């Protein structure tokens, strides 16, 4: 019972470490420059260096800060991320905890991370960090809704909340691939929505306003330095990896891939496939981080409530249709048409909305 947890914990921590490295090297490559290549052969020891650096760095706590809350914030930032991994089915035989309310538990726990943001921002008694925290909370809360609804679509299709059951539902088909939900019309839309939600949830890529330097001085963890800052980063990255894991399980067929099966060998192959897909998702994240510009705060929230939410609801309807139209081709046509229709109208509405000139409240 304990082995899978230990295994999962160590593997994912390792993945976290090297995700930071891969991210920096990939971003460098995208920007036509080398990534860190000084510390190890290709910068391999860079994460260790970072970790050491942060450990050594002086941990400055503002005088008037709320000591207890200031200390507690990073801890609470990390705990939910780690808890998220408990639900991700790595392989057919390797599931840390099989809860029959897997997905729901995941979302419940992810909301707790919101608290960390807030406590961090509030405890450092710094107006800017407070504002950053407020924005982060608003962002996380508003993106949670479309993400959950996207997940609901998958749960409806599968009929169970447990992640293992969802992954098992995607096996079969040619080479264990064609049954992945991503190849269903509603599945693909769900995948897109979920990834966007996940990115916003962990404050990455276009939605990384809270900890963006150009915005309000690195948001809520302005006053943090040293290991507390490291913990915050760790919490963040772990959350994004876990979310990637969940995306993989829900949409990319979890550990299903050609050759994956229940047996020992199948299990190993399934683990292999899971990590391949996980890598793909992480790279996708990094890729998006490298290209897309940061989104303005009001557009960020507007996008969530005005585009993602209606789209996810439409997606749920599509799954309903899919479920009841037993004749597959008709189902395909109907759902795709329905989703395309919604997508077009929403893009029309959203498009005009963006064009409107920005009204400045105080500047003339």
């Amino acid at each position, binding site marked *: 019972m304990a082995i899978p947890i230990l295994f999962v914990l160590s593997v994912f921590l390792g993945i976290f470490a090297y995700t930071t490295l891969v991210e920096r090297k990939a971003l460098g490559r995208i920007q036509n420059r080398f990534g860190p290549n000084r510390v190890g052969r290709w910068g391999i020891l860079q994460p260790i260096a970072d970790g050491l650096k942060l450990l050594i760095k002086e941990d400055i706590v503002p005088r008037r800060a*709320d000591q*207890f*809350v200031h200390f*507690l914030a990073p801890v609470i930032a990390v705990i939910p991320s780690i808890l998220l991994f408990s639900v991700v089915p790595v392989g057919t035989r390797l599931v840390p905890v099989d*809860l*029959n*309310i897997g997905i*729901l*538990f995941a*979302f*419940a*726990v992810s*909301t*707790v991370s*919101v*608290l960390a943001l*807030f*406590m961090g921002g*509030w405890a450092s*008694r710094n107006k800017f960090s*407070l504002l950053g925290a407020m924005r982060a*909370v608003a962002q996380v*809360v508003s993106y949670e809704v479309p993400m959950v609804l996207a997940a609901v679509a998958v749960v409806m299709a599968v*009929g*169970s*909340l447990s992640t293992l059951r969802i992954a098992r539902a995607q096996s079969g088909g040619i080479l264990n691939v064609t049954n992945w939900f991503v190849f269903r019309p509603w599945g693909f839309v769900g995948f897109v929505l979920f990834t966007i939600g996940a990115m916003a949830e962990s404050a990455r890529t276009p939605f990384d306003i809270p900890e963006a330097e150009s915005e309000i001085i690195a948001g809520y963890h302005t006053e943090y330095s040293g290991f507390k800052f490291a913990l915050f980063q760790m919490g963040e990255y772990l959350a994004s990896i876990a979310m990637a894991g969940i995306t993989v399980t829900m949409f990319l067929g979890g550990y299903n891939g050609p050759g994956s099966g229940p047996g020992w060998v199948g299990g190993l192959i399934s683990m292999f496939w899971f990590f391949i897909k996980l890598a793909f998702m992480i790279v996708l994240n990094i890729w998006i981080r490298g290209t897309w510009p940061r989104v303005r705060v009001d557009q960020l929230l507007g996008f969530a409530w005005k585009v993602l939410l209606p789209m996810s609801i439409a997606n749920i309807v599509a799954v309903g249709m899919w479920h009841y139209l037993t004749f597959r081709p008709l189902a395909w046509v109907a759902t795709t048409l329905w989703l395309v229709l919604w997508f077009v109208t929403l893009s029309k509405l959203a498009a005009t909305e963006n064009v409107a000139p920005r009204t400045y*409240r105080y500047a003339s």
Partner: protein
Amino acid sequence: METIFWILSAITVLGALFAIMLRNLVHCVLSLILFFLGIAGHYFLLRADFLGAVQILIYVGAVAVLMLFAIMLTRHVTGDEGPREVLGGKWWAGMGTAIIIAGLLWAIIRKDQLAQILPAGGAQTSMVEIGKAMVTDWVVPFEAMAVLLTAALIGAVVIALEEVIRRR
């Protein structure tokens, strides 16, 4: 199993006590969160795990954040806590009645034979069953709940937002 129960109840009671006793509001809310988590734990213990998840999702996720927001919005910007009087007027009356009620309940529960029953066990109502019940014979409350939540949402926004509109 009992140890877990006692630990959880200890956590819950402590959380509740600190929630109402502490001077610093934010600490109060944090202890309240602790209390909520304790209750969620109890739900899991009572094998009502969906409810536990819901509890965490709603209370810890939303209500606690709401409380924090409220605290933040209603404290003077300077935020100086100051040795302000914590207890309201006639606090002894409130305390007294609460203690009396607690004592009475305690006495009643101890006396009542109902209290000795042990858990019945049996199949745990699965999620599917709950989902089906929710949509079939509980559909009216479900819809009413939907309406209520939207109304509360809009109401809260209108009440809180008013000042912004006026300022503009």
